[in-house]
């Protein structure tokens, strides 16, 4: 009796451990779908369109990974997470990727055992106020009520910024961007603070955009990027090279329009050949990807510039720091060799 129970427990344990150890790529392929954790709703980054389909810059990244691994960008299941629940959801295996305005920090990387695979958006924290408030600088916000999303770097930066400038404030904590908008509009808080990208997205959804302004101060560095669980290097490599492939596409002028054409011919720039599967890319088989992986990504989703322009230009977001290095921005990717 007892040994039987022990045996059962042991098998359960082994089975469980086994399922953890199986490669993420195998799991995704076996399921035929990629599980991707995104925002609860932030226009431009991840928000359902009028047909209920998720759209946005972060959504496109999920699609790109699906295109590379499954050959079809539409094979994605989306799971939403608030700032608070995202890491728990990722750790619990509710998704293979967390693609949700997530700032790369030391403790998240090291202590929370996540792997940040790169930066797809360089951001910084800003403040938005109604113009009627008559405030021109964040330094004038002493005593204000400030809406913040909990479980974010935002709330830690805010505490440090106000303390550092000898100012007091009244934090009004909320869970999602949608709630924050409601409270801000109702006047529960004087200021809404979050990543500048989030402020632009929020402003975009307002009817009376002209009544609000973003203050000039940017009080933090927020390198945002996709996150995967620690421990599966193959998967981390796949996800990071999908991001680089999209940026390489922009760098080399490969777009969703011309990618098929470029893939078919022998290009003078051999890096294009290697990226698009014309020439062999050493080690690609170790990633378990087929030679047309990047073609799938760029043809179905587009290069970095294309998704940026599609989703973020309407919010009046400029490339700025998010331009490629050769255009004066910060995106500089290792060579495809």
């Amino acid at each position, binding site marked *: 009796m007892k040994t039987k*129970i022990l045996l059962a*427990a042991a098998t*359960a*344990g082994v089975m*469980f*451990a086994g399922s*953890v*150890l199986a490669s993420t790529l195998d799991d995704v392929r076996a399921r035929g779908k990629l599980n991707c954790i995104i925002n609860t709703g932030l226009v431009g980054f991840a928000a359902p369109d009028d047909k209920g389909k998720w759209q946005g810059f972060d959504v496109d990244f999920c699609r790109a990974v699906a295109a590379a691994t499954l050959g079809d960008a539409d094979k994605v299941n989306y799971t939403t997470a608030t*700032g*608070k629940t995202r*890491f*728990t959801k990722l*750790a619990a295996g509710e998704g293979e990727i967390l693609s949700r305005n997530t700032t790369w920090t030391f403790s*998240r990387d090291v*202590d*929370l*055992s996540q792997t940040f695979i790169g930066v797809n958006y360089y951001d910084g924290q800003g403040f938005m106020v109604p113009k009627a*408030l008559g405030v021109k600088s964040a330094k004038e*916000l*002493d*005593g*204000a*009520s400030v809406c913040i999303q*909990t*479980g974010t770097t935002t*709330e*830690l930066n*805010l*505490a*440090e910024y*106000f*303390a550092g400038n000898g100012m007091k*404030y*009244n*934090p*009004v*904590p*909320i*869970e999602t961007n949608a709630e924050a908008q409601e*409270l801000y509009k*109702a*006047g*529960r808080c*004087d200021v809404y603070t979050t990543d500048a990208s989030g402020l632009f997205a929020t402003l975009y959804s307002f009817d009376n955009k002209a009544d609000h302004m973003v203050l000039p101060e940017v009080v933090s560095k927020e390198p945002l990027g996709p996150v995967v*669980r*620690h*421990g599966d290097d193959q998967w981390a490599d796949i996800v990071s090279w999908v991001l680089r492939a999209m940026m390489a596409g922009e760098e080399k002028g490969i777009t969703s329009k011309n990618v098929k054409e470029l893939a078919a011919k022998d290009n003078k720039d051999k890096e294009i050949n290697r990226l698009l599967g014309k020439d062999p890319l050493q080690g690609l088989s170790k990633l378990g990807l087929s030679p047309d992986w990047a073609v799938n990504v760029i043809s179905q989703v587009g290069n970095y510039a294309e998704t940026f322009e599609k989703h973020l230009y309407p919010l009046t977001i400029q490339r700025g720091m998010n331009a490629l290095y050769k255009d004066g921005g910060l995106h500089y990717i290792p060579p495809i060799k």
Partner: protein
Amino acid sequence: MNFFANIWRNEKSREIIVQIFVLLCVGWFLSWLISNVDANFKALGKDLSFEFLFIPAGYDINQYLIEYNNRDSHLRAGIVGLLNTGLVAFFGIILATFLGITLGIIRLSKNWLASKIAYWYVEFTRNVPILLHILLWHGIIINTLPHPKKAINIGDVTFLSNRGFYIPKPLTEIGIELVYLFFVIAIIFSILFFKYAKKKQDLTGQQYPVIWINLMVLITLPMIGFFVSGMPITLEIPALKGFNFRGGMHMSPELAALTFALGIYTAAFIAEIVRAGILAIDKGQREAAESIGLKPSKVMNLVILPQARRVIIPPLTSQYLNLTKNSSLAIAIGYMDLVATLGGISLNQTGREMETMLIVMLIYLSVSLSISAFMNWYNNKVKLVGR
């Protein structure tokens, strides 16, 4: 074989065997749970550690009953949250009790309209989920009350706005000790007088208006102390400064919404409990009390309620417990209670899900157990003795 069959047939030993078996199952299940957690933790590269409690929390909390700033530890942030839970539970319980008892009594009144209103109150309130109550009250306060700059001004000392309610705050100065002293004397007098009056009534049947006299003493004595010592209490009046009111005492919209919602919701259940308790008293008791000429209020207070109390208290306890536990929905409107601080932001900023949740659960468990222990004690005290 026969031996075993006999053991099984014997009721006593069979019971023991069954219990041992159940115990084994439970034990096995628990150990499986623990080993599973352990395996998961290993797979995720995590360990169980409570060191995070002592590092700076890094976030601010908008309501603290003890000193707190973002350099304090997660532990302290948790305590601040726990006190906030206690505060809203305290306010909620007071509101729910008063409202509930009143409604329960009204519900039984002979006035048709009043009783119907109480009936509809109960039916309506308790059939709407508590979360909706909370969101509704929060929405009302935030969307209907004006901005601080246009706050509703009550006598230049109290202000209502969508940032909450501001009332004057008493500040004490030197000399206040005299007021305290007089107050203590007043309390001692009240107790002695109460005992004396009771004794007198038992002996002679003579009655004093004890409540009124005590109330007078409790108010006037400290007042005399107050004037004699040169009025050592000043009021700090809230005033609009910059974005918000400063000074005075502040009740945030979140605290107010939670108190209203929890109080009003739980009052519906308490009303039913009170009604049931009163109905449980044999109607002969009421008739007997009325026949000796007691006024209706005396019948209620001296005859019915003391007996109904015994029926009312156990379920009332569980309502208080429910209210306290329901207060954890605070997180929906951003009230910084225990679940929002330690079980929310700290959890998230440190990634210590298991540890924070264990602590939060243990705290709720011990709060619940102590409230029910207290209520059991009280119940034992008021229950019928020697019957």
